[in-house]
C-alpha cells in the first residue's frame, strides 16, 4: 500500500496536533504546484490564446489568433463543424462578462444563451467561464443542462468478471434508480457473458434501463450492433493533435465512428476530460480547461449527442492543482452550454478524504446534470473494474440522505431490503435460465443463492473460468443477438424480463434514443432534451423535486414514524 511511504523526514519534533493532522486520510492525497508553461494548470494560464475569429466568404479563416494555414486538426475540425459561421464574429465579439451574466440570468432563456454560445470560439468560451465562481457555474449548469430531469449512471463490474454478480448488482442498481448501467472487464474475453448479464440484470431491476460495456472500439461496436448492449460511451477524444494521434484517432475517424453508431440505432457519447493531455506530456503549454473546451467543441462538431467529461480517469491531475475542481465543474458546464448531454464524471476514485469526495460532487449534484455520476459504483469499489469510483455501494445511504437533506434529486432512492433481495434473486435466476436456454456455462443454485445475499465478488462460489471463456467465445461465434436473449428469457418463463428487453431493442428501430440526453422512463417513454427540455427560468421553475418523487426520496433506512414513534417508517 502507498500508505507505508513516509511523507517527510521524521527528525524535527512535531506537535501532537500536527501528528493528528498528518494521520488524516486527507494527507494521503497528492498535490502539486502549477507549471503553466507545461499546461499543468487548471484554467488560468497566460499561455492560453486570446479569443479571435475572422470569417471570409462563409469560412472561418482565423481562430483564436491562428490563421487557417496554421490550424492544427483540432482548430480545423472545430472551425469547419462546431462553430456557427453566421454568428461567430458577432458572438465572439460580445463582452465575455455579458455572456457570463446571461448564463446565470434567469431572464435569459436556455435557447437565448445557445444562440450565443453556438458562435463562440474555444478561447472565448474559456474567457467566459473564467469569470464565473463555482456557485455561478452551478447556476449556469442548473439552466443549461439539456434534459429537464436529472439522472444518474452506475457501474456494475466484478473483480472476477463474475456474470452472476454483475447481473445481481445491475438489478439492485436499476431498482435504486440508475437510468444507465455500465460495465467493463478484467479479462476482456469475458465481455459477451458479462454484457449479457448486465442487460438481463438491468431489465429485471427496472425495465428500460440502458446498458453498455466499455471495450476497445471494434468489440464495443459489435456488442452494440448485436443488441447485447444499448449504448456506448468510451469513445475518447483529446484536446491536442499529438495526444489525439497517440490515441490512434483523429476528429474525422471519431466523427465517422459516431455516425456508425447512429446508423445502427445505438445511443453514443464521447469521453474526454481535463488533465489527459498534460498527463500524457503533450499539453502544448495550454491550460487543462482550454484543451477540454476544444474537446467539447470537437464533440459538438462531430454531431454526437453528448459527452462524458469531468476529468474522468485523470481526476488526480486537476484534483492536485489550485482551482482544479472549479475547472472540472466548468468543463461540465461548457458541455451543457453548447447543448450536449453531459455525463458529469464523479466516476473515479478521487480522494482518501470522505469530505473531499463529497465536496467534489456538489457542483454536479446540487444543480443536477444529465448524469450526475458517469459511473457511481453499484458494486463495492474493490470490485470496480474502472479502477474505483468516487462513490460506491457503501455510500448508498449517505447519498440518499444528502438528497433528502438538501432536497435535490441525485437520481437514486432508498429501496427496502426485501425488494432488493427479490430483484437480485430474480436477476440471478433469469440469467441461470437464459444461460441454460442458450447452452452457455451453467449457473448453480448455490450461485443464485449467493447472488441474492452477496456484497462483493468474494461472496460468490468461484466460476470455472475456462468454461466461461469458451462460452463467451461461443456467444460471438454463434452470432447470438439481443433477440436470442429475448427468446431465451421468454422460453425460460421470464416473460416480463423478455418484454422489457424486447421493448428496449425495439427502441433502436425508432431512433428516439439517438436524440440529445435521451433515457427511457419506467413506462418506456423516451425522455430527451426535445420532449423534456430544460425550462429553468428562475426560482419556482424548471425541475423541482416535488410530488411523488419527493415522497420517494423522503424514505431512508431508518426514519422514526410520527404516528407511532415506537416504530420506523417503512
Amino acid at each position, binding site marked *: 500500500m502507498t500508505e507505508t511511504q513516509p511523507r517527510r523526514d521524521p527528525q524535527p519534533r512535531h506537535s501532537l496536533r500536527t501528528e493528528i493532522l498528518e494521520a488524516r486520510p486527507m494527507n494521503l492525497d497528492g498535490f502539486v504546484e502549477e507549471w503553466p508553461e507545461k499546461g499543468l494548470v487548471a484554467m488560468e494560464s497566460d499561455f492560453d490564446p486570446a479569443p479571435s475569429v475572422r470569417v471570409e466568404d462563409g469560412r472561418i479563416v482565423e481562430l483564436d489568433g491562428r490563421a487557417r494555414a496554421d490550424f492544427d486538426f483540432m482548430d480545423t475540425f472545430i472551425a469547419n463543424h462546431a462553430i456557427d459561421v453566421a454568428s461567430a464574429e458577432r458572438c465572439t465579439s460580445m463582452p465575455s462578462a455579458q455572456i457570463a451574466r446571461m448564463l446565470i440570468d434567469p431572464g435569459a432563456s436556455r435557447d437565448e444563451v445557445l444562440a450565443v454560445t453556438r458562435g463562440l470560439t474555444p478561447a472565448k468560451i474559456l474567457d467566459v467561464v473564467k469569470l464565473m465562481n463555482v456557485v455561478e457555474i452551478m447556476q449556469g449548469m442548473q439552466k443549461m443542462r439539456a434534459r429537464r430531469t436529472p439522472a444518474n449512471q452506475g457501474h456494475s463490474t466484478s473483480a472476477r468478471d463474475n456474470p452472476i454478480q454483475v447481473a445481481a448488482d445491475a438489478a439492485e442498481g436499476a431498482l435504486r434508480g440508475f437510468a444507465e448501467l455500465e460495465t467493463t472487464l478484467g479479462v476482456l474475453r469475458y465481455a459477451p457473458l458479462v454484457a449479457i448479464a448486465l442487460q438481463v440484470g438491468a431489465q429485471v431491476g427496472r425495465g428500460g434501463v440502458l446498458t453498455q460495456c466499455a471495450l476497445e472500439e471494434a468489440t464495443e461496436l459489435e456488442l452494440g450492433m448485436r443488441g447485447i448492449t444499448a449504448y456506448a460511451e468510451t469513445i475518447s477524444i483529446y484536446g491536442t493533435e499529438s495526444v489525439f494521434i497517440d490515441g490512434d484517432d483523429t476528429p474525422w475517424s471519431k466523427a465517422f465512428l459516431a455516425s456508425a453508431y447512429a446508423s445502427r440505432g445505438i445511443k453514443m457519447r464521447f469521453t474526454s476530460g481535463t488533465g489527459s493531455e498534460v498527463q500524457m506530456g503533450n499539453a502544448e503549454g495550454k491550460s487543462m480547461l482550454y484543451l477540454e473546451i476544444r474537446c467539447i467543441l470537437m464533440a459538438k462538431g462531430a454531431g454526437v449527442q453528448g459527452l462524458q467529461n469531468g476529468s474522468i480517469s485523470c481526476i488526480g491531475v486537476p484534483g492536485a492543482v489550485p482551482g482544479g475542481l472549479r475547472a472540472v465543474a466548468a468543463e461540465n458546464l461548457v458541455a451543457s452550454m453548447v447543448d450536449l448531454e453531459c455525463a458529469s464524471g464523479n466516476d473515479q476514485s478521487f480522494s482518501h478524504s470522505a469530505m473531499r469526495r463529497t465536496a467534489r460532487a456538489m457542483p454536479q449534484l446540487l444543480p443536477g446534470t444529465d448524469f450526475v455520476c458517469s459511473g457511481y459504483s453499484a458494486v463495492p469499489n474493490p470490485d470496480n473494474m474502472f479502477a474505483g469510483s468516487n462513490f460506491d455501494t457503501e455510500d448508498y445511504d449517505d447519498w440518499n440522505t444528502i438528497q433528502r437533506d438538501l432536497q435535490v434529486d441525485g437520481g437514486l432512492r432508498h429501496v427496502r431490503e426485501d425488494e432488493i433481495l427479490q430483484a437480485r434473486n430474480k436477476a440471478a435466476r433469469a440469467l441461470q435460465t437464459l444461460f441454460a436456454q442458450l*447452452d452457455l456455462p*451453467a449457473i448453480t443454485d448455490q450461485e443464485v443463492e449467493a447472488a441474492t445475499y452477496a456484497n462483493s465478488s468474494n461472496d460468490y462460489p468461484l466460476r470455472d473460468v*475456462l468454461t466461461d471463456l469458451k462460452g463467451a467465445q461461443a456467444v460471438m461465434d454463434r452470432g447470438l443477438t439481443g433477440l436470442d436473449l429475448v427468446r431465451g428469457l421468454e422460453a425460460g418463463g421470464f416473460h416480463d424480463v423478455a418484454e422489457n428487453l424486447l421493448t428496449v431493442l425495439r427502441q433502436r428501430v425508432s431512433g428516439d434514443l439517438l436524440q440529445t440526453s435521451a433515457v427511457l422512463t419506467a413506462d418506456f417513454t423516451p425522455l430527451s432534451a426535445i420532449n423534456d427540455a430544460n425550462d429553468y427560468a428562475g426560482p419556482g421553475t424548471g425541475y423541482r423535486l416535488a410530488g411523488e418523487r419527493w415522497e420517494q426520496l423522503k424514505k431512508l433506512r431508518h426514519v422514526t414514524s410520527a404516528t407511532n414513534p415506537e416504530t420506523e417508517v417503512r
Partner: protein
Amino acid sequence: MDIGNSTTEACVAAIDPDGTVHYLGTDLTHTTGVKGTPDNTAGALTAVRGALHRAGRRAGEVTTVLLNEATPVISGLAMETITETIITESTMIGHNPTTPGGTGLGVGTTVSIDDLAEQEPGSPVVCVVPHGWDFDDTATAVDRAVGRGVDVVAAVLAGDDAVLVTNRLTVPIPVVDEVAAVEKVPLGMLAAVEVAAPGRTIRTLSNSYGLATVFGLDPDQTRHVSPVARALTGNRSAVVVRTPSGDVTDRRIPVGELVLRGAGKSLRVDVDAGADAIMETLARVQPLDDAHGEPGTHVGGMLAQVRDTMADTMADGAADLVEVSDIAIRDVLAVDTFVPAEVRGGLAGEVALENAVALAAMVRTSRSRMQLVADLVSDGLGTATAIGGIEGEMAVSGALTTPGVDRPVAVLDLGGGSTDAALLTREGECSAVHVAGAGELVTKLIDSELALGDREVAEAVKRYPLAKVESFFHIRHEDGTVQFFDEPLPPQVFARVVVLTSDGPVPVPTRHALDHVRRVRREAKRRVFVVNAVRALRQVAPGANLRALDFVVLLGGSALDFEIPDMIADALAGSGIVCGTGNVLGTEGPRNAVASGLVRAYAADSVAAVPDAPAPGLAG
C-alpha cells in the same frame, strides 16, 4: 441417442421397409447433469435437435426416439497420502535453491552474522545471515571477520543472495540461500554446508558415511542419520546441522484396511501396502460384490465419501431416497501416485514427494431413471420414445459399422469415469463389463503429481501435446521437432512449456521441464488406461485369455486421445490382437457407436416384427 457420463450423442436415420438404414446426421453435446437423471433431458434435446438440423429434417418428421438403457454406473475418486517426511530439531536444509554460491564443503559452528564481529579466531565458523541483510554488507562483514583471522568456511542466507555474496568475497566459500526460516537454524552447533558445481550433485552429505566422516559418528549414530543422507540425495546443495537427537523420519501414515468382498470370500488389505497389493487382492475376490473401509480410518472415510455422493446423485430429485447401503462398490482401481508436500519441520519449505494411493471406485445401483428422461424427451419433441437395448451390446453393434471389423469383436469404451468392455462372439452372444477408472482419474493424477492445483490445466496437459516456446518465432515440440512461425507468438507464452490447444499454445504454469511433464502425463495414462484395458478385456475374453480376441475397437472420448490408443495397441500387440480406434459408420470416428447401434437394432427388430413394414419413418 446415447447419454453417456460426459457426452450425449444422437444420430438420425431413415429406415426403409426392408430394414435398410440410411444415416442422415449425427450430433453430440456435453451431458447435462448426472447420467441417468432427469437433468439429462436438456442435453438430450440439444443433441437430437442438432442431429436433425444437420440432417436437414424437422422434429415433426421423427417417428420415434431410441434411448440407451444407461447402465447406472457412476464412479468416484479419492486419494490418500500414505507417507510423511518430518525433520526434527532443524537437522537439515535440503530445499535445493536454484542459485547457491561457491562450491565445496564447509564444516564449522553456526554463528549469526550479527555476532560475527565478536567472534574469536580459532574454530571454523558457518555464518548464518538473517533477513534484511544486504548482500554487499554481508560480504563486507564476512571478509572483515576473515581478515581478523576468523575461519568462515560457509554461509547460510535467508535471501536469494548466494551468488552475489560469493562473487564479492576475497575467499569464496560454499553458500546456501533462500532459507526462509533461517532464524530457526540452531546456533552454536556443528554444521556442514555442501554446494556442488552447476549440473552436479552433492557427494558428501548425501552419503551416510560422508556424514559419519564429517561429524565423526559411530555406527549407531550413522544408522540414525542415514535418512538425512537419503533425503539429500540428488541435491546440488545442502546443509546438515548436528543436533543431539535431530533426524529426518519418513513415516508411513496408517490409512487403514480395505475390505474387499466377493466370490464368497472377504479379504482385507492395508492400503499403505500400495496399489499392487490392493489390485492383487482384488483379483482374488472377482467378481467384487462390495468394498468397505474400516470405519474411523482414512480408507473408511474415502469409500464412505464416494458412497455418499453416489447416494445423493442417485436420489437426486427421485421420490424415494436411496439407502447408502443399497449402493455396492462393484469395482476398484488402485494406483500408486505421489504428492509433492511441504516437509514438516523444514526451514526452507523443503518439498518431499510423498507416496499416495489413488482409488477409483465404481458403483452399480439397481435403479436407472432413464424412463423419466425418455418421457421428458418425448414431451420436448412431441414424439414417441423407446428405451433400447443394453449399452454394451449397442456399442458393439455400432462398432461393427467400423470398416474392416468383424466378429468376434470386443469394444473398449474409454470414458470419463469408467472403462467399459463388451464382447460379441462369432455366435452373437454379448457380454459386457465396467471397470473403475478412466479419464478423470488420469486428470487427477496429473494434477497432483505436477502439483498444478488446477483441474483445468491438468485436463489440458492430459489432452494436448506439449512444446517449449524457444523464441517468438519457433517452438520445439515434445518429440524434438522444431516448428517456425512468421507471426511472433504472444508474449505470455515466451520461454514457457505450453500445451498446443486448438486455439494456439497455452502456457502450463509449472517449473518442471517439458520432459518431466511428459513423463508424468504418459505414466498417468498408462497406469489407468493400459491397466484397465487389459483388466476389462480379460474379464470378457473367453477363459480370460486375451489371445482369444481378434478385433478390439476403441470407442469413447479418450479414444480420440493423441496417444492412449497407441499405448493400448502396443500393450495388446503381444497377444496378436487387431486394435485400433473405431470409425463408426465409417465417418464418426469413435463417436456415436451406441446411438448407431440402437438404430441398427431397431431396424432389425422392425423388419423381424412386422413383415409388411410401415411407411418409412425417421428414427433418431
